[in-house]
């Protein structure tokens, strides 16, 4: 068991998301930063889709009630296990009674924590992800509260041989951290209504540093910037949308759909953030600036292939590094 000592209500149990039920109106959900959770799971010896905790509100504290191994990934936040510093992208042994504390991120917005065995909550429609909007999955279908006690799956507990734990180098996959005030570059593919926008709107879309407003959550981010206009008014029938779909409602201000996006929508779509760049949005807090750079489908597929190759290499190297006792 682990016990939650301090949290915010949007911190939740998440895995890599729910697939197979879009046609019943059930969205993906799952962690906003899927590569981070996958890496953290690899580091503690879990399969990629084991459930961990996504932390978007800080400070966050939990107490271990068993000896286990955990890994911290995602946002760069000051973290301590009792008195000891825990670096980012790091796996470490924890002893029963020790307290893990995560402070406000220095950069990024969401930390993910994986635990050996994974968080043991029931599978709902094939996933352990919390769907906060629809109130099911995860821990009782809701965000975490102080006093919640979460079980860890699996009974055999193994211990890392390295006393201080070990880290993963993710720079090849994630690049250098973005400086404050620097726009985050997102690669996009044009969507169905891209050419229905005026030429001016299309260049504005690509040249603006869009502000993430405070209306930003796991469903999506509303952006603020110059108004984007269509060449003529469009009335679209409801159609499937994906995490990463950038819609432009009548007020001309884009919305990026994210992990808990509705499965269908009706607003014109100007572009889609490519799958391999979605984690950058998970790490972009309200107030950050975004820039949309056009790319092509081959590049989008190649970026995913590169991500898979990175994970395969990491899986091979951590199995050597980990050295279970």
């Amino acid at each position, binding site marked *: 068991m682990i016990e939650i000592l301090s949290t915010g209500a949007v911190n939740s149990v998440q895995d890599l998301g729910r697939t197979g*039920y879009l046609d019943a109106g059930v969205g993906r959900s799952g962690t906003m930063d899927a590569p981070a959770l996958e890496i953290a799971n690899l580091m503690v010896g879990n399969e990629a889709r084991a459930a961990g905790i996504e932390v978007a509100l800080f400070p966050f504290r939990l107490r271990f009630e068993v000896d286990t191994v955990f890994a911290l990934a995602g946002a760069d936040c000051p973290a301590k296990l009792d008195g000891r510093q825990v670096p980012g992208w790091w796996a470490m042994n924890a002893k029963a009674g020790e307290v893990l504390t995560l402070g406000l991120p220095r950069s990024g917005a969401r930390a993910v924590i994986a635990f050996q065995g994974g968080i043991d909550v029931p599978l709902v429609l094939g996933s352990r992800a919390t769907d906060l*909007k629809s109130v099911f999955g995860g821990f009782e279908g809701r965000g975490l509260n102080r006093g919640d006690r979460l079980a860890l799956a699996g009974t055999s507990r193994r211990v890392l041989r390295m006393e201080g734990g070990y880290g993963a180098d993710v720079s090849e996959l994630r690049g250098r951290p973005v400086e404050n005030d620097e726009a985050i570059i997102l690669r996009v*593919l044009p969507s169905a209504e891209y050419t229905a926008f005026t030429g001016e709107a299309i260049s504005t879309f690509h040249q603006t540093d869009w502000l993430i407003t405070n209306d930003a959550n796991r469903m999506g981010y509303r952006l603020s910037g110059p108004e984007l206009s269509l060449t003529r008014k469009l009335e679209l*029938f409801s159609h*499937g949308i994906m995490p990463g779909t950038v819609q432009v409602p009548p007020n001309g201000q884009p919305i990026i759909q994210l992990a808990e996006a*509705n499965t269908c929508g009706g607003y014109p*779509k100007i572009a*889609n953030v490519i799958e391999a760049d979605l984690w950058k949005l998970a790490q972009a807090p309200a107030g950050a600036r975004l820039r949309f750079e056009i790319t092509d489908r081959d590049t989008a597929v190649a970026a995913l292939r590169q991500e898979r190759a990175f994970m395969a290499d990491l899986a091979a190297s951590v199995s050597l590094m980990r050295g279970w006792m």
Partner: protein
Amino acid sequence: MTEVVSPRLSTEGAGAILLDAADTVFSDDIQSRIWAVAAWMLKVGGVAETVPGMNNLMIVFDPLAVAPDAIEHQLLQAWQTVVPNAIAGRDVDIPVVYGGATGEDLAVLAEHAGLSVDEVVRRHSEAVYSVAAVGAMPGFVYLSGLDPALAMPRRAVPRMKVEIGSVIIGGAQAGIMPCTAPSGWHVIGKTKVPLFDPLRDPPSACKPGDRIRFRVIEVQV
């Protein structure tokens, strides 16, 4: 054989393709083809999910397992060749209490339509609706078959909370709220039939192709 119009294809990222066959008005014939092509595409290797919308269809696939242009090719081929056969949809009976506190927009809708409340209820409950698609929120059914006289533009300002089971009209579409959520649609009645249960598989009570009839329990003033 009727001519099959070429649909428009677009991308939603590397791993999703949207086929849009919509004309200016919704077509039941096109929707039958959408369902048939969705079922066919699910058997294509690498395809993970199909999402029928209103006269459109999104295919979600693993672009590392199958090339996106191969999916496009198969999708266009399926669109031309698949024979839509009538889906053996089920008949779903939805008992409704019309009007009253849980159908607060019934009178407003009647006034907008220039009909009596009883006439609105008669027309709404005598139509046979087809579940065109399920989506947006879990278990939400997009229904075709609403009497055009009952169409009414959505509210300018959505309500922040519309109760589960609300029987609603938005534009030319009819629907039922599967959960309590914000909505700009007009609320004309209430049903107790549950439409979504995440602990059931399939979780949605209705599938595309099902026929829905609203049955009058009571009309409240």
